[in-house]
């Protein structure tokens, strides 16, 4: 798969406890992105943050570490990112999604054969 130089970065902010279809929401989003043939997705767990409810979640205080922030980043062409949005919209009940312009410097599969 090739990526055009002018791509988009989709960034999704959700909570670690969010679920979809019996699995963590971040996992469901990654699976959906893979199913739709997107170029890749990366999940990060945040150490601290707050969202629409203004409640701080932090790993520092045990009682407040229940729902740490999760950020998922997906880079692909504008068309593929846009076609992914309806599925994402259905899955995320609480959270934030942003899109930024991304200049793709390289996208290399390496030597390993693609996994089936």
């Amino acid at each position, binding site marked *: 798969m090739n990526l055009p130089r002018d791509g988009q970065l989709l960034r999704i902010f959700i909570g670690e*406890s969010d679920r979809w279809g019996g699995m963590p929401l971040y996992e469901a989003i990654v699976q959906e992105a893979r199913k739709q043939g997107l170029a890749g997705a990366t999940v990060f767990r945040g150490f601290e943050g707050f969202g629409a409810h203004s409640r701080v979640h932090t*790993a*520092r205080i*045990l*009682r407040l570490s*229940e*729902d740490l922030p999760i950020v998922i980043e997906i880079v692909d062409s504008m068309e593929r990112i846009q076609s992914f949005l309806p599925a994402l919209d259905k899955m995320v009940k609480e959270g934030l999604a942003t899109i930024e312009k991304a200049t793709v410097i390289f996208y290399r599969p390496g030597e390993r054969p693609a996994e089936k």
Partner: protein
Amino acid sequence: MLSQISATRTLIVGAGGFLGASSRYLIGGIVYNYLPATFPYATLIINVSGCFFIGLLGAMAEERAVLGPTSRLFWMVGVLGGYTTYSTFGYETTSLVRESSYLPAGLYVIGHLVAGLGAVWAGAFVARWLL
């Protein structure tokens, strides 16, 4: 009113707390079968072992993400919290130290010792005053 999610989480913590508190009670009994009752060995053993397990689980959750949020809630807040709140104290103090928040960490430790022991004395004082 508790939302359904909060109620579920509270039940998860409660179930873990039952196991943790029961374990503490049983271990306390076993310890004094072998050690003399001249020193509170059981509480020391329980507090130290609780700290060890919260360190173990905390690192597993943070560095390898092998514990999901529900498992963390059950084991770290429920089981270990019921076993000994000292584990939570240990986790939070080391978290503060790790991020170089030395003053809050120091105040937290001193607060527990001074205010905690002082509160025992104050509680006893209030009880005597009431009776």
